[in-house]
């Protein structure tokens, strides 16, 4: 389990995140939402270990982040940043294989390739092995990167809980691909038992796929819980300064969120100072 408690991060003397808290269990999909500048990425980076919090601590599988050896940590959690640019062209399969770095020397090269193919298949890029990564569309590139991080935590007989930390993985996907991607993440959580913490912008996707939603506002944790309890008109108004309706359609289990044209207070997010 990932546990981040009381996380505070300071940047140039100002708190940009304070008293944030998030938990991710194996097999769980947790969506991190909030307006731009709310501290989502900072929290994700703190959990990933890129940013060392000035307050609080993150532990994975009951071990404090600082105590994890780099290679061991890489085997239990993989991180996908928002946009990863490659300076050189290379075949897709090579990119995915690079995710297996932590297992280098521990598995035969043929096995690495098999795993890479498997992961490509999971993100819907079967047969793309030899395609030049630079000739792929933005969405395809993003999925190829996802295949790489999948490969990083792929294990046949997992001995420990494994996690994926994703920063807006649906960026540059079309509407159908967004659904496909989220259902893939759902499947990975359910079947492979991966714990997934992902930043999402689309509130409906969070509503439909997440087990839990963590809503941040101006560096603070506003609400955390099941999608239906967090993504209420009040929650959305507080978190985004946006008027929204939550609509239930007969025959569907989950409600839909409709955002309204009038803003509650469009600029309230500008004040980012935290008491």
């Amino acid at each position, binding site marked *: 389990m990932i546990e981040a408690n009381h996380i505070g991060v300071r940047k140039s003397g100002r708190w940009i995140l304070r008293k944030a808290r998030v938990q991710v269990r194996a097999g769980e999909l947790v969506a991190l939402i909030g307006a731009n500048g709310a501290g989502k990425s900072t929290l994700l980076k703190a959990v990933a270990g*890129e940013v060392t919090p000035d307050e609080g601590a993150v532990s994975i599988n009951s071990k404090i982040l600082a105590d994890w050896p*780099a290679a061991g940590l890489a*085997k239990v959690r993989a991180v996908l940043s928002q946009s990863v*640019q490659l300076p050189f062209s*290379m*075949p897709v399969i090579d990119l995915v294989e*690079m995710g297996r770095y*932590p297992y280098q020397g521990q598995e035969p090269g043929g096995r690495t390739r098999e795993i890479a193919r498997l992961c490509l298949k999971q993100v819907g890029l079967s047969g*793309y092995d*030899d395609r030049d990564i630079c000739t792929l569309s933005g969405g395809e590139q993003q999925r190829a990167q996802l295949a790489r991080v999948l490969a990083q935590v792929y294990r046949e007989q997992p001995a420990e809980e494994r996690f994926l930390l994703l920063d807006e993985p649906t960026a540059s996907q079309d509407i159908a691909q967004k659904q496909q991607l989220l259902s893939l993440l759902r499947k990975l959580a359910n079947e492979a038992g991966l714990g997934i913490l992902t930043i999402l912008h689309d509130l409906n996707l969070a509503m439909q796929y997440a087990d839990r939603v963590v809503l941040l506002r101006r560096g603070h944790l506003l609400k955390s819980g099941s999608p239906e309890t967090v993504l209420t008109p009040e929650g959305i108004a507080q978190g985004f300064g946006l008027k929204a309706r939550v609509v239930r359609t007969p025959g569907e289990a989950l409600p839909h969120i409709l955002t309204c044209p009038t803003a509650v207070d469009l600029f309230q997010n500008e004040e980012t100072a935290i008491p």
Partner: protein
Amino acid sequence: MIQSLPKYRSLSRLLSPPVLTLLLAISALCALLIGAYSLPVQQVGLVMGEQLFGLEAGLPQTLSYLVWDIRLPRILLSVFVGGGLAIAGAAVQGLFRNPLADPALIGVTSGAMVFAVAGILFSASVLGAIGSWLGYATVTVMAFTGSLLTTFLVYWLASSKGYTSVVTMLLAGVAITALGGALTGLMTYFSDEDELRDIIFWTLGSLGGANWQMLALLIPLVLLPAFILWRQSSQLDLLLLGEREAAYTGVNTQRTKWIVIGCAALIVGACVAVSGVIAFVALVVPHLVRLIQGPRHRSLLLGSALLGGLLMVWADTAARTLIAPAELPIGILTALLGAPFFIWLLLKTKRSL
């Protein structure tokens, strides 16, 4: 529907490491037979037999000296200098995630130049005791020292609180290179004619000074760091995704940076020290290999080393035979051949840059 990547796939197989190794060996053998002094194949063979297997061929001293002490060390030197420069270039390009990076960018060459010029100018006076002890090795030792010192200076400038920024390193490298250029210019301005000549010849590069002692020093200084670089292949691959992604995947990026810069500085420093400034090899060769074999460092570093050595053998053969009995400075030759070729590459692959 899915187009496959390497248009150069067949070329990729053609230039695979075993084929390149074979080509390199053949080239070295050919180069041993080519020279201003025309020697029949049998005689070259006899000299080699004499030296390697202790045959008694009774050849004249000049002949065996020519083959064994002049041609052979020079060919070996070109293999190691060419290979060394190219592998260092490939690794540095990977580290900086920039196909236009060159070890010269981090100040290695400039530092070597400042110290070499100082060595030429002051070997008799200021350096006195050391200078006379080292003899003509003074300039070589000075250049090597200079390249290492400058690299460490650049590395230190770019580091704070245990983190080294490659971008800062690049900028610091540019600044230090400019400073080095100014210092070199200053010393050149105050040099007398003999010194000026030596400075110019050094800047133009030459493998003419090759001998066995030099090789005995150079080979370990190239091979060992090259091997260490090669062992960093996977880390360099991941660094292509950016430092953050590499770190997420379990790479100790700080350690990798340190190793790559240190090894590249050792290799380039040693090569520049023995041969002067040889342009474009470190830039063009990795670029070419990357086009053919892709950017994975395991094959890129090996391929660059082999192709670099191969090209340098031919470049030096041209340098010592084209305008014989005089000699063409090899740095000029590589720049003359390398620059247009590089431009052609740029035009051809505009997209992938």
